[in-house]
């Protein structure tokens, strides 16, 4: 750590830096390098990058080539310092979200906001913090409110650079001799930001105004001290002020540790070498990404689509009458892997945003894709914004993926994000399959739900909010070479952990009645998707307590791969006005699980008002002592034909609690026989089961024959479906509204849809008056953009009008081939001039 001489005042070095900067400012000298303003430096960087095809014009990696050991030492030291900052600072936090689940991360950024290195943790924010820094530069923060040594900035505005309001980021500039040399940034997920309902991600609001407090790249302190105005501001905007205060100290602790680490590096190696490293590391990361892609995938076009439901029709406590409608997310996902190994990711065809809190901004989508890429494509390379410079994103303006409308709500952007990512795993996996890297293949991720959330007056008679982060732990998709890991991780936090029940009980007045693996949550397949789990909670010593659910219900967003089935979707189970207290007193049985929803076991052990519904989302509703709530966490999707699964593995699945015995036969054509009623495995399924090998063999043969008899040629099915669509037979309004929304958003998707089904040119789905009004209402709302001063890289998000030809064509039409794709102009076109020295 840097040691600053004790001169009887705090941070004397920072104060000297500040004096230097102020003297320079009086002489008209900017805080950028060589006297540039930060904005000038940013624009020059973009120009150099575009002109040369290399980040910041770094065609050669001189430091890496001339002194590779020192280069690696410096980068490793920085990364280690970032991880150290995370591991140390999280002990400052009080919420289990941060302390147990590790929902925080740190980044080190160039003056222009490109990430040089990132810690472990919620690395989705590798790029969201970048966007916030770029926003400050683009909006001339250097002039006002000023960027000086010791300043502290806070952001949680999704339209500036974030995913949702509950991810609060702290950014501090790091100066050296009057120049801004880097930014330190940290993000953590806070438990409540004062949304219209309690919890970090309320679901009942129709617009941003119910999302909770937004702090838009705000300067909240100087001289490394928080302004009194800030200290008196945010605590009253949350139900959990003490948690938020400690969360802020957590982020400040980490940022200051990073600041010290940078100063140490500069002291050791000199500022010029630090600058050189920061540029080279990003260019190195850019090349590494392409090299990795060229080594592990195939060029070409990969396509998929995912969907998720958000059913609001008839929900209580909606803030606006016009929000009383159902929404479906349509996410067409196209990945073009170009000849140079760069990525072009397109969501052309996505439908319109909605009056719900699941909308996304570019920063959210980019961050989301980042967290996936760092776990798949570049797990052992320089993880930084180099990869960002190898990817172009096409996110249609006005769609749920890029609303460009500051009225939209974003509190639980993850519901759509996580669902929209699902095909991207499969794109990568198809490439890995073709190249033979089968150990990397993964069928997908789980829809990370449910999120037990709510709040009210807690067991200490204090206003409180809760957010069970058990959802940081779900089943993951099946791999090609192994089953998916059960109850193991969440896509957005690769170090996911469900947290200790006892720790959650210390902060939440929601005692656990049971916690167990949830059978049949993972998708069936030759390799089974990892199972999710469930926790049965009750409520104790509360008043005016609200709880709600969120997740998929009528749709499953996670597709299977290569014949594997999608993971299960969710449902809601609550019980209110129960006799649980009497059962405790009388030492009678009470429900600890709902492992098989068809068994009637839950209903047989409790009296009360039981709600069991196949939907996934509910708005806040009142709960009282001894009411019950099922927190059901989803599983991952399956891979391969289930009839190819080893029958003995299915028996093991039964004993491990992953598969209900009846589904051994239905889903896997495996015949099992119960041989012992009493035996107990690591499972909620009572008994011992044995495989009937002969019967299984016969059944599988029968099943193969049945397939041939019941399945029909696709050409025949196509004719039927085309007629069905033309006559709109058995298509509900919610589905038709979704198609119409996508077709009105994208003439390319409309053409494709018409062509595929051979529909008349003027074909439109007939919508109900309500659906038509809803679409019209949103399409007429227009754009309310946040960025009014973008630099080149950010024009991408703003200038794609719906009547213009988008930058990325819709390529699903049968007549188009990969060869017709345009060359990229938003990304670098040339091949890598020199390969990185390792294979990544």
């Amino acid at each position, binding site marked *: 750590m840097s040691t600053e001489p004790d001169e009887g005042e705090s941070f004397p070095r920072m104060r000297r830096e500040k004096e230097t900067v102020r003297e320079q400012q009086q002489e008209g000298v900017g805080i950028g390098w060589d006297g540039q303003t930060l904005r000038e430096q940013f624009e020059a960087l973009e120009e150099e990058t575009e002109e040369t095809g290399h980040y910041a014009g770094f065609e050669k990696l001189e430091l890496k080539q001339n002194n590779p050991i020192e280069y690696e030492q410096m980068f490793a030291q920085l990364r280690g310092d970032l991880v150290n900052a995370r591991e140390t600072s999280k002990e400052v936090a009080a919420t289990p979200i941060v302390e147990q689940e590790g929902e925080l991360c740190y980044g080190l950024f160039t003056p222009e906001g490109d990430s040089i290195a990132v810690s472990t943790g919620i690395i989705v924010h590798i790029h969201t913090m970048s966007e916030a820094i770029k926003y400050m530069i683009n909006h001339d923060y250097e002039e006002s409110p000023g960027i000086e040594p010791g300043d502290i900035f806070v952001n949680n505005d999704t339209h500036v650079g974030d995913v949702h309001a509950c991810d609060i980021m702290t950014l501090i500039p790091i100066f050296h001799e009057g120049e801004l040399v880097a930014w330190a940034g940290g993000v953590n997920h806070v438990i409540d930001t004062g949304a219209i309902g309690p919890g970090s991600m309320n679901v009942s609001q129709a617009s941003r105004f119910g999302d909770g407090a937004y702090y838009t790249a705000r300067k909240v302190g100087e001289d490394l001290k928080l302004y009194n105005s800030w200290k008196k501001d945010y605590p009253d905007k949350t139900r959990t002020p003490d948690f938020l205060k400690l969360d802020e100290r957590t982020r400040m602790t980490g940022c200051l540790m990073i600041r010290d680490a940078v100063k140490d590096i500069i002291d050791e190696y000199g500022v010029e070498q630090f600058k050189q490293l920061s540029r080279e590391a990003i260019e190195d990361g850019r090349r590494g990404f392409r090299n990795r892609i060229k080594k592990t995938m195939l060029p070409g076009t990969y396509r998929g689509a995912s969907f998720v*439901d958000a059913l609001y029709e008839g929900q209580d406590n909606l803030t606006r009458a016009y929000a009383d409608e159902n929404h479906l997310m349509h996410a067409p996902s196209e990945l073009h892997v170009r000849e140079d190994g760069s990525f072009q990711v397109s969501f052309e065809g996505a439908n319109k945003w909605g009056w719900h809190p699941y909308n996304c901004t570019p920063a959210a989508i980019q961050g989301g894709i980042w967290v996936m890429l760092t776990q798949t494509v570049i797990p052992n390379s320089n993880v930084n914004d180099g990869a960002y410079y190898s990817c172009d994103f096409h996110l249609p303006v006005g769609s749920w993926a890029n609303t460009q409308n500051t009225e939209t709500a974003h509190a639980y952007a993850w519901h759509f994000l996580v669902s929209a990512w699902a095909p991207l795993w499969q794109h990568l996996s198809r490439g890995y*399959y073709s190249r033979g890297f089968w150990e990397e293949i993964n069928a997908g991720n789980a829809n990370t739900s449910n999120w037990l959330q709510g709040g009210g007056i807690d067991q200490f008679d204090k206003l409180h909010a809760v957010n069970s982060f058990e959802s940081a732990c779900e089943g993951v998709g099946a791999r090609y070479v192994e089953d998916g890991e059960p109850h193991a991780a969440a896509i957005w936090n690769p170090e996911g952990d469900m947290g200790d029940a006892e720790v959650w009980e210390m902060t939440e007045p929601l005692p656990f009645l049971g916690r167990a693996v949830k059978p049949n949550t993972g998708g069936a397949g030759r390799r089974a998707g990892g199972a999710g789990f469930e926790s049965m909670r009750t409520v104790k010593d509360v008043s005016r307590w609200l709880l709600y659910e969120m997740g998929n219900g009528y749709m499953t967003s996670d597709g299977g791969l290569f014949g594997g089935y999608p993971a299960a979707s969710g449902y809601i189970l609550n019980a209110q006005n129960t006799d649980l207290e009497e059962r405790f007193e009388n030492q009678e049985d009470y429900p600890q699980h709902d492992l098989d929803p068809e068994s009637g076991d839950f209903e047989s052990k409790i009296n009360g008002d039981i709600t069991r519904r196949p939907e996934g989302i509910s708005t806040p509703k009142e709960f009282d002592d001894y009411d019950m709530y099922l927190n059901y966490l989803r599983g991952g999707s399956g891979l391969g034909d289930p009839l190819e699964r080893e029958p003995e593995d299915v028996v093991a699945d039964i004993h491990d609690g992953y598969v209900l015995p009846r589904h051994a036969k*239905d889903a896997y054509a495996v015949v099992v026989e119960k041989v012992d009623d009493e035996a107990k495995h690591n499972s909620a399924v009572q008994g011992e089961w044995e495989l009937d090998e002969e019967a299984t063999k016969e059944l599988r043969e029968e099943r193969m024959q049945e397939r041939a008899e019941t399945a029909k040629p696709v050409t025949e099915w196509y004719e039927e479906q085309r007629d069905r669509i033309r006559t709109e037979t058995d298509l509900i309004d919610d589905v038709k509204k979704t198609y119409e929304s996508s077709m009105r958003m994208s003439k390319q998707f409309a053409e494709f*849809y018409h062509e595929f089904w051979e529909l008349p040119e003027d074909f439109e789905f007939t919508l109900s008056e309500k659906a038509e009004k809803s679409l019209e209402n949103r399409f007429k709302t227009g754009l309310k953009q946040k960025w009014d001063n973008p630099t080149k890289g950010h024009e991408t998000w703003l200038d794609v009008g719906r009547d213009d030809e988008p930058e990325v064509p819709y390529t699903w039409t049968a007549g188009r081939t990969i060869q017709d794709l345009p060359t990229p102009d938003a990304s670098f076109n040339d091949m890598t001039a020199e390969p990185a020295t390792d294979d990544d």
Partner: protein
Amino acid sequence: MPESYPREHIEDLVDDNLEWNQLHDMMSDFKDADRFQQVRDVLQERVDWDDPIIIPYADHLYVVAKPDNRWVIKCDCGHEFCEHDQNWKMDALINVRDSEEDYLEIYPEDMHPHPDYMELREFFCPGCNTLLEVTNVMPGYPLIHEFEPDIETFYSEWIEEPIPTAEPESA
């Protein structure tokens, strides 16, 4: 950091004979440079037909070279679907799960999609009835053509090898 794994190791990968620790090592290590060629060669030995494999396309499916310079998608059972840049699903057998009853064969009650909102399309090989893909989409959704590989670029620029060709058909 192996530039290349022994042939036996790749055979074990293809034959599903590797232990978890071996697989884990392969995941953690740098990627071997000749994996594609090794896996393709092993797969070629495992199939019962002689058409040269150009790329493994998906589980059970390959793009193979035919004598008349055609590249077709072929199942390991020998069934041939279509040209490599066409959607093989158009030539498959399909079964659609779009009722509560259908869903309950795979999922417990309440844990499956609602048939009005989502259907499961199961695609089988007409040659061997293997289930090759399951897609979950809204009713009325077009067939998704998941993968259009750019084979020419891959061979000429990424691995710098000639694209396998089939022996001309004898007269």
